[in-house]
C-alpha cells in the first residue's frame, strides 16, 4: 500500500510538471502579446518596450520557463501581469470559492442522484421510474447557463428566498443555487447509473438469499444492495468533482462567483501568463489528488480491491 502511494505520488508529480510545461508552450505558441493586450488602445511604443522588458518578456521562452521552475521551488508563482499582485494571492482568493462550489455541488448531486436511482430500480417500470427517467433526460441535456438562470429566477426572484448571486459574507447559503446548478446534470447521470447498477445487484444470488432469510426489504436494499451498487458511482463522482474544480466556469459566471475556473479563463484571454501557469498548476495538483483519494476510497469500499 505504501509503495503504491509513493509510486502514485511520484507519477503525479511528473504529470503536474509536464502539464506546466505544456501550458507554458501553448501560451507561447498562441498569438497575442500580453503587453499589447494590457495596454489596449494606448499603443505608445516607448511605454510598450519598457513594460515588456520589466516583465521579462524580452527573454526567450525556455529561459522564462526555467525561471518559473526556480521560483516554483521557492513556492513563488510570480506576479500577475494584469492584477499586479502575486499569483499566490490570486489563487488564495479564488480557490476556496471553487472548492466550496465543488463540494456543495457533488454533495447535492449524490444526495439527489443516488436515492432517485435506487428508487427507480426498486420501483422498476412504475410511474416513479419514468419520472426519474424524465428528470435524467432533462438534467443531462439542460445547458449550464440556462439551468443557472432558471434557478436564479425561480428561487431568488420569484420566491425571493435565496440570494441572486455573489458570495456575500461567504456563507453556504450563497452556494446553494450554484451548487444545485452544477449538481443537477451530475445527479441525472448518477440516477441512471445507480438505477442500472442497482438492477443488476438486485438479481444477484446474495440479494435473493437475504430476502429469503426474511430480512426487512429496506435493510436488504440499503445494507446489502446499495454498498455493492454504488461502486461505479465513486469513480464517476470523483471525476466529476475534479472536473468541477476547473470546469464550472459558466455557473461561476452566472452566479458571479470569482472561482478559479473563471480566473484562469480570464487570464488566458488576457495572456496573463503567470496566473494561467499558477492556476493550472493548482488545478492539476487538485485533480491528481482527488483521483488518488478516489482510489483509496475504492479500496475501502470494496475489500477485494488491493493495491
Amino acid at each position, binding site marked *: 500500500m505504501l509503495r503504491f502511494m509513493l509510486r502514485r505520488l511520484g507519477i503525479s508529480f511528473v504529470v503536474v510538471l509536464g502539464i506546466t510545461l505544456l501550458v507554458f508552450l501553448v501560451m507561447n505558441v498562441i498569438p*497575442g502579446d500580453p503587453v499589447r493586450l494590457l495596454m489596449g488602445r494606448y499603443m505608445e*511604443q*516607448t*511605454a510598450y518596450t*519598457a513594460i515588456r522588458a520589466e516583465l521579462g518578456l524580452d527573454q526567450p521562452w525556455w529561459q522564462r520557463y526555467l525561471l518559473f521552475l526556480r521560483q516554483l521551488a521557492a513556492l513563488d508563482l510570480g506576479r500577475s501581469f494584469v*492584477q*499586479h499582485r502575486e499569483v499566490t494571492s490570486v489563487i488564495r482568493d479564488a480557490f476556496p470559492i471553487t472548492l466550496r462550489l465543488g463540494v456543495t455541488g457533488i454533495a447535492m448531486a449524490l444526495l439527489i442522484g443516488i436515492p432517485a436511482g435506487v428508487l427507480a430500480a426498486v420501483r422498476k417500470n412504475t410511474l416513479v421510474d419514468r419520472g426519474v427517467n424524465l428528470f435524467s433526460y432533462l438534467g443531462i441535456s439542460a445547458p449550464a447557463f440556462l439551468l443557472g438562470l432558471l434557478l436564479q*429566477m425561480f428561487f431568488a*426572484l420569484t420566491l425571493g428566498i435565496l440570494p441572486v448571486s455573489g458570495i456575500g459574507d461567504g456563507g453556504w447559503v450563497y452556494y446553494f443555487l450554484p451548487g444545485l446548478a452544477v449538481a443537477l446534470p451530475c445527479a441525472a447521470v448518477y440516477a441512471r447509473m445507480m438505477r442500472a447498477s442497482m438492477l443488476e445487484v438486485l438479481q444477484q444470488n446474495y440479494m435473493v438469499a437475504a430476502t429469503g432469510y426474511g430480512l426487512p426489504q429496506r435493510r436488504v436494499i440499503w445494507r446489502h444492495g446499495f454498498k455493492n451498487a454504488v461502486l461505479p458511482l465513486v469513480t464517476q463522482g470523483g471525476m466529476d468533482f475534479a472536473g468541477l474544480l476547473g470546469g464550472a466556469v459558466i455557473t461561476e459566471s452566472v452566479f458571479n462567483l470569482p472561482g478559479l475556473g473563471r480566473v484562469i479563463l480570464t487570464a488566458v484571454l488576457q495572456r496573463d501568463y503567470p496566473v494561467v501557469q499558477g492556476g493550472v498548476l493548482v488545478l492539476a495538483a487538485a485533480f491528481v489528488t482527488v483521483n488518488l483519494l478516489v482510489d483509496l476510497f475504492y479500496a475501502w469500499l470494496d475489500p477485494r480491491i488491493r493495491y
Partner: protein
Amino acid sequence: MKGKIRSGFFFTLLAVSFLLLTGCSAESGLQREVAGADGPRPGGVFRFGMTVEAQSLDPAHFYEASGIEIGKEIYDGLIAYDRDMQLVPAHAEGWENRDNMTYVFHLKKGTKFHNGREVTAADFKYSLERLLDPKTKSEISGMLLPVQGAGARLAGKTQEVSGIKVKDPYTLEIKLEKPFAGFLYVLAHPGASVVERQSVEAAGKDFGTPAASPETVVGSGPFKFKSWQPAMEISLVRNDAYYGNKPYLDEVEYKFFKEESTVLNEYRAGSLDFVDRLPPGLVKHTVSRYPGLTRRTEQLSQYFYAFNMDKPPFKDNLKLRQAISTAVDRNAIATMLEREAVPATGVVPRGISAAAGAGLGGDRRKAAQLLAEAGYPGGQGLGEIELKYNISEVNQKVAEIVQEQLRAAGISLKLVGMEPGAFINDLVKGNTQMFRFGWGADYPDPDSFLYPLYHSGQIGNNNLSFYSNQAVDDLLDKARGEQDAGKRLELYRLAEAKILADMPAVYLYSGVETDLLSRRVRGMAVNKLDLKPMDRVWLAE
C-alpha cells in the same frame, strides 16, 4: 455566434420570467413616485453595478474604464473637469501658461491626503515621475511623453524628469518638449493624480492591488478607500476632510458582475442603485420594462473600419476607399443596433467636431461609379477584401451588415473575426487590409482623435492605418502650439477636412451608453468621458 445563441436563450428566459412574475406586487410598489425633492438628503450607501471588473487602484494603471471610474473618486490631481467638461482647479488654485510649453501651477494650501498629510508640489513631482519610472510598468505613461525628459526617464536613462520642477512647496513647473495646448487635459486624467509617497512605498509592489493593506490606498479625493473583495466589490466611504464639495453619500459600493443577465437580476431583486452600460441587445427590453429609469448618453467615441494605407488594394486608391465609404449605409447600421449608435459623418464625434462631415453613405449608384473609376468596374479584378475585427456580438453584427451592403455594390468582403490577442498583433504588424477600430476620447478635444490616429509621428503607436499627410501633420502641430481656442478649433476643422478627403477609414457610428438607475437616485450625471462623478449624487428616501 456564441453570443447570439446565448441572447436567444435569454429572450426565452425573459418570456418565462414574465409568466412567473404576472401578478407579483413588487412591481406596482415600484411605481410609487417619490415625493418632491427638498434638496439633497445626505447619507446612504450607493450600490453601483458594473460588468467589467476593476484591475487596479494604482493611478499608474488607470488604463481601463472601471479602474478609472472608481479611482477618480479616491484620487485627484492638479486639475479636474466640471459638469460641463470645463477644466477647473483641483489641487491647483491657478496656473500660468505662456506658450503652451511651460506651465506653472500654484497649489492650494492645506489640502490633505486621506491620512492627514498635506499635499505639496513635491508630491506631484513624485507622482508624475513615478508614472514614468519603467519599474512602475504604467500602461498610460505615454500620455506624459510630451514632458521634457519624460522619454529618457521611461527608457531608464535618467532617474529624474528634467521638465518637472518644484519651485517651492506650493509651486510646480512643468516644461514640455514641444508646445501642446491639450496638455492641461492630460493632467486632468485620473492617472495623473497625486499619490502619497509613504503609502506607496509601504505597499511596495502590491500598491493598489487587493493584496495591499487597505491603509496604503491613500488619495486626496472625495471618497476614501474602504475595502476590496477581488472580482466582487470595491467599497468607498466619504472623505469628510475633502477640500472640495463634500459628497452626500456615506458610501459607494462598486459591484462587479461577469454575466450581464445576472446584474439585471440583481437590479430586479432591488440590490443595485445603478447598472453601468447596459449590454447591447438588452437595452430595448430594459428601457421598455423600466420606463423613466434609463438614461441614454452619447459617447465621445468613434467606431470605424480603417484602411491599411500602406498596402494594396487601398494604397494610392482614393476612389476605392470612397466607393466603400459611399456604399456603407450608416443609418441602416444604427437602426440594426437599436439606435444605440449615432451614425458617424466624420473623424471626430459630433459632440466636439467642428468639421462638416462626409455623407452617411448608402448610395449604391454612386458607389458603383466610384468603383469603376477606381479601376474595378462592377468589382471585377478586385478580389475579396479582408475585414479583420475582434470577435464580439456587436462587431459580428456590424461586419455582417456591412458585408451585405458592400456585396450589393459589387464589393466582396471576407469577414475575419479574431480573438483579441491575435487581432492586436495583426494590427501592429500592419498585417491588414481593412480592420475595425474604436477610439474613445481621452479628453474632450478634437486633438484626442486626430493626433494619435492620424499624425504620421504616431505610426508605430496608434496610427494603425499608416496614414501620412504632411499637410495634416503641420496643421496638428500648429494647433498644439496655438494659444487662441477659436483659432485652434479652426486648425482642427481644417485638419479633419483634409483627413476626410483622404478617407483613411469608414466612420460608422459614435457609441451610445444607456444606464439603468433605481428610483431613489438623484443628481447622477454621466460626463462626456463616460465618467459618473459621485460627489453630487444623493439618495431619496
